[in-house]
């Protein structure tokens, strides 16, 4: 695996000697990995293998049994890690318009990350209640809010699930473009988009094996 320092990059995600337990089972042992901006890293594996547990640890939302996960941000930026999991949802009793107004209020315009217009919900939905959206629409709305934040780390668990093929394509292209200045890790049980780049790690529930290396290694 390439090292961020040998590539003269001073920031990225660094994992050292990681051991993760899920209950009494060890789902990952002695995993060391470094990922840097440039390409999306894909973690593929079956449902229930433990990808979500691994991603929660990579996102800093859960602690590993042993080992370290370090998020080193570029100078002048906070090491904010955005994390998405399919079980996450939007607050009920609100409308698409009210939700978007909320997102606009929490991020000052100057700190917002530009968003692909194809990921922005249709303005005709503004008065629609969020809890009456289709699963795909609600997911796009959630991802749209998340991706507007200009954080240097983006850890996404099954972001393509329930999305229509065009929306999947848009999201994949957006992530590839954004990976230039963001460390992005995506876990999926689906096929990695055909025109994607970046390392692919296969997870079988106990170890991660590279099945495609970073292009620039």
């Amino acid at each position, binding site marked *: 695996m390439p090292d961020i320092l040998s590539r003269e990059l001073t920031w990225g995600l660094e994992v050292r000697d990681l051991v993760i337990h899920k209950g009494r089972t060890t789902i990952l042992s002695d995993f060391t990995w470094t990922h840097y901006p440039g390409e999306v890293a894909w973690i593929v594996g079956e449902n229930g293998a433990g990808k979500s547990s691994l991603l929660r640890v990579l996102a800093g*939302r859960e602690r590993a049994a042993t080992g370290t996960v370090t998020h080193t941000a570029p100078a002048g930026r906070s090491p904010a*890690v*955005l*994390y*998405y*999991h399919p*079980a*996450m*949802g*939007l*607050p*009920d*009793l*609100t409308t698409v318009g*009210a*939700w978007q107004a*909320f*997102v606009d*209020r*929490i991020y*000052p315009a100057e700190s917002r990350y530009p968003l692909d217009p194809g990921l922005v919900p249709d303005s005709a939905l503004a008065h629609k209640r969020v809890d009456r959206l289709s699963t795909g629409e609600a997911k796009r709305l*959630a991802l749209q*809010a*998340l991706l507007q*934040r200009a954080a240097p780390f983006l850890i996404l668990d099954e972001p393509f699930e329930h999305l229509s093929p065009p929306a999947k394509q848009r999201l994949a292209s957006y992530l590839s473009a954004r990976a230039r200045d963001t460390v992005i890790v995506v876990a999926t049980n689906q096929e990695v988009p055909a025109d994607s780049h970046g390392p692919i790690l296969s997870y079988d529930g106990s170890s991660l094996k590279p099945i495609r290396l970073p292009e620039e290694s």
Partner: protein
Amino acid sequence: MRNTLRQAAAVARLELFRTGRAPTTPVAALAFAVILAFGYWLYWRALPPRPEDDRLLAHAFILAAIIGLRFGIASDRALGAESFLIRNLVGPAAYFAGKLAALLTSLLALTAFAVVTGTILSAGDWNHALWYSLASALAVCLFVPILLLVESAMDTRFPGAAAFVLFVVAALAASITIGIEPLTSFLGLTMERLDYKSLLPLAWRAAVAIAITGASYPLWRRRASG
């Protein structure tokens, strides 16, 4: 700090929008108005001398608060919105402060609604409506920390009812242990009807209850996802 305040204000606005659209809000307002209207109807129909110590407004107010007041923390957690919002979109402190600010604003709105409705239904006796609404709002503040406890511990859509039951059980246990008068005095419920100065002990306790709710942030954070 400025960022946290901006985020807390955004959370509070969203929560107030949700409270406005919650089905329990019109039910709470209607319950308050119907009970009060029925009480006044009985009052005006009664032959003089009419009873002066009418606590119906307080009872209707507390019922409306039980139905309508909520932090929204429990429903956020049940929907996975808490883990989505916290750390991804807003900081945990901003989330908590926003929820508390929204709850207090809702309580203020309920108080204003009670004053206006009480004044109308009592044929212009605003002093009566204002005093009872204020006393009720201060009393409701006493179970705000319990409401937070309930929402932190249970995934319920009706946290007010659970908080009220807990409050009553605790009050009953305390009254058996230490007696009713010491308990009434401890809770600051020793006011004189229509005497605003006599609300001061209750106002102090209400302020302490809100401060306790704010200080419970680390306890809530342990339970909160995200």
